[in-house]
C-alpha cells in the first residue's frame, strides 16, 4: 500500500490486512447458548424451588404471612399518600424551572451523543449566552461549535479549522428558536400555547410511585412542530421527575414511513436529556479564543463577497432561489469558475475558490445547458432553505449527458440578509464531472 494509491484501493487492501476469524460465529453462538442455558436454569430455580421451599418450610410460613401483611400495609400507605398528593399539572414544572439560571442539555440519537447545549440567562430570565456543540464524534469531540452572545455568533468548523464570525439577525433568531424550543421552561410554555390554539393534544400519565417519572405525551398536528418549518405529524414524550417536577428528558418521535422505514409507526428520532440544573458550567465554556488554537482561519463573514445580491423589493424566496441556481449554472457554462465558486456556500475565501477552480479545470468540467429548473420546495423536515430540483446537460468525453440534480438548495448568505447562496453536496458536484 502506498500513499499515492487511490483511497478506495487502500481501503480494500486494509480490509484484507484486518483479516477474519473462521471460528468467530461458532464461538459467539456457543457463548450465547451457554448464557441462555444459565438464564433458564436460574429462572426455573427462582420461580419454583426457592419460593416453594421458602413457603413450605414450617418456620417460614409464619414469616411469609408477616411479610405479606407488612407489604399490604405499606402498599396501602403509598396508596393513601398518592390520593393525598395533588394531580400533576404543567404549571408545577414551570414553577420548578423558573428559578434556574443555567440549563444544560444533550441530544442523543441512536444511543449516541449528537449535540450538547449550554444556556445562561440574565437576571430577567432572558437568554444571555448559548453554546451548542454539534455533530459530536465517538470520542466526544464536536465537529462544529457555535457560540452566541448578544446577537454576535461564532461558528467554529473544527476539522476545517475555520472560525466564522457574523452578526445575522436571521441566524440569531434560529439559535434563540432552538434554545426556546428545548429549554425545559420554554418547551413547556410552547406546548401550552399550542394546546390553547388546538394544534396539539397533551396527555399526562402520573404513575402512583414517586420513583417513576410523570409521562407527558404531546401529539402535534402537521406543520405545528416548529412554527416556521414544514413538518409531518410529530410526537414528543416528556419525562418529569415526580419529586422535583423538573423535566429530565424529551423524546422526539416522527412517523417511520416518512423516514423511509418500512413500518408506518412512530420512530424515535432522538432524545433531549436534561442532566444538570444549575450545576456550574466549566470555566471558559463560552470563550472560544483558547480552544480554537492559533492556526485557526478566522473569517468575518461581513467582509466575504459571496452569493447573489437581490435589491428588488417584493421578490419571493422561491424567485430568489431559482435566480441563484440559474446564475450558478450560467457561470459554469461560461466557465467563469470564480463566479460559480462565489455563489457556492462552502467556497467563501480565495484559497478555497482557487482549489475548486483547479479541480474543475483538471476534470474538464463542461456544463453545456440548463435543461430545466423546477419549482423550489421546502425540505421534508427543517427550515431556512429551499430545495431546487434541476436538470443540466454536461459533456463528458464528447458525450452529452443529462444530470438530474435533486440535492441543490438555496439559503441566505451568512451576514448578508439580501444575498442567496447555493448549497450543493460534494457528491452532487462530483456527479457533474463523472459518468
Amino acid at each position, binding site marked *: *500500500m*502506498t*500513499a499515492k494509491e487511490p*483511497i*478506495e484501493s*487502500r*481501503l*480494500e*487492501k*486494509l*480490509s484484507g*490486512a*484486518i*483479516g*477474519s*476469524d473462521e471460528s*468467530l*460465529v461458532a*464461538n*459467539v*453462538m456457543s*457463548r*450465547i447458548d451457554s*448464557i441462555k442455558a444459565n438464564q433458564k436454569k436460574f429462572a426455573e430455580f427462582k420461580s419454583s424451588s426457592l419460593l416453594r421451599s421458602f413457603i413450605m418450610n414450617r418456620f417460614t410460613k409464619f414469616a411469609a404471612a408477616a411479610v405479606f401483611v407488612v407489604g399490604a400495609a405499606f402498599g396501602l400507605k403509598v396508596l393513601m399518600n398518592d390520593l393525598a398528593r395533588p394531580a400533576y399539572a404543567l404549571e408545577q414544572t414551570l414553577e420548578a424551572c423558573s428559578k434556574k439560571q443555567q440549563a444544560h442539555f444533550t441530544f442523543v*440519537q*441512536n*444511543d*449516541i451523543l449528537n449535540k450538547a447545549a449550554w444556556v445562561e440567562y440574565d437576571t430577567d430570565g432572558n437568554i444571555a449566552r448559548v453554546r451548542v456543540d454539534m*455533530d459530536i*464524534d*465517538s*470520542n466526544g469531540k464536536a*465537529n462544529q461549535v457555535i457560540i452566541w452572545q448578544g446577537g454576535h455568533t461564532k461558528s467554529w468548523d473544527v*476539522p476545517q479549522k475555520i472560525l466564522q464570525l457574523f452578526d445575522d439577525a436571521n441566524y440569531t433568531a434560529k439559535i434563540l428558536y432552538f434554545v426556546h424550543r428545548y429549554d425545559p421552561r420554554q418547551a413547556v410554555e410552547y406546548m401550552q400555547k399550542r394546546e390553547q390554539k388546538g394544534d396539539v393534544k397533551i396527555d399526562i400519565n402520573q404513575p402512583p410511585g414517586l420513583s417513576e417519572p410523570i409521562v407527558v405525551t404531546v401529539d402535534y398536528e402537521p406543520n405545528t412542530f416548529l412554527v416556521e418549518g414544514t413538518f409531518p405529524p410529530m410526537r414528543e414524550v416528556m419525562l418529569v421527575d415526580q419529586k422535583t417536577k423538573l423535566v429530565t428528558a424529551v423524546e422526539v418521535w416522527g412517523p417511520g414511513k416518512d423516514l*423511509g*422505514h418500512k413500518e408506518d409507526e412512530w*420512530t*424515535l428520532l432522538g432524545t433531549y436529556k436534561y442532566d444538570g440544573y444549575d450545576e456550574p458550567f466549566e470555566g471558559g465554556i463560552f470563550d472560544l479564543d483558547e480552544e480554537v488554537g492559533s492556526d485557526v482561519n478566522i473569517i468575518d463573514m461581513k467582509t466575504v463577497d459571496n452569493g447573489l445580491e437581490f435589491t428588488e423589493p417584493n421578490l419571493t424566496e422561491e424567485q430568489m432561489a431559482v435566480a441563484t441556481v440559474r446564475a450558478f449554472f450560467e457561470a459554469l457554462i461560461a466557465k467563469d469558475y470564480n463566479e460559480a465558486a462565489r455563489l457556492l456556500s462552502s467556497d467563501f475565501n480565495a484559497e478555497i475558490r482557487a482549489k475548486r477552480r483547479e479541480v474543475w479545470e483538471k476534470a474538464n468540467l463542461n456544463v453545456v445547458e440548463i435543461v430545466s429548473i423546477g419549482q423550489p420546495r421546502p425540505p421534508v423536515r427543517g427550515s431556512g432553505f429551499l430545495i431546487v430540483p434541476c436538470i443540466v446537460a454536461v459533456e463528458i468525453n464528447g458525450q452529452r449527458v443529462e444530470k438530474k440534480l*435533486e*440535492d441543490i438548495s438555496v439559503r441566505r448568505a451568512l451576514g448578508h440578509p439580501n444575498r442567496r447562496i447555493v448549497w450543493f*453536496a*460534494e*457528491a*452532487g458536484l*462530483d456527479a457533474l464531472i463523472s459518468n
Partner: protein
Amino acid sequence: MQADCELIKAVLDGEKEAFAELVSRYERPVRAIAINILGDHHSVQDAVQDAFVAGYQHLSSLRNRDSFGPWLMKIAHRCALDWAKRRPKIIPVETTPAGATEKPNGQLDEESEGLLSAVVKLPEAERQVVMLRYFAQHNVKEVAEIAGRSIGTVTKQLSRAHKRLRKILKES
C-alpha cells in the same frame, strides 16, 4: 439481502441463526475497531467475541433497529478498551525473522495503521458505510439496504468519507 432491522426482529422473535448472520456481517468492522485500540492479535479476538455477546444480550434495549451498526461499534470500542485495561503493562519484545514481509492476521503495517486510525475518526454515519463497503465487502446497494438508507445517501456519505480520509491522511 435482509436489512439489519429485519434480522434483529428475527433474533428477538427467537431465531438465533439471524444473529449469526449479523456476526458475519459485522465481523471485520468490529475487528477493525478492536485492532485500532488493541493492536495485538489475541486480545482482538477476545474483544470481538465480547462485543458480539454483549450486543446479543442488550439487543432488546436497542430502540432504533436501523442504528445497529453504529451501536455495535460503540460496544466494540468499550470492549476493546476493557481488554486494553486488562493487558499486562510490560509487553514482551517480539522478534521478527529477517526478511519477513507478511504480517499475521490482524497485525498491520504502519500505513495500514494510519489509514485505519483515520477511518475510526470519521463521523459515525460515514464510518459505518466505509466499514460495510470495504471491510464487510458489500456493494453500495447492499450497504444501503443494511443501513436502512437510500443509495443516494450512501453514495454521498462514501464520497464525503473518501475526501475526509484523504485530508486526514495528508495532515497526519
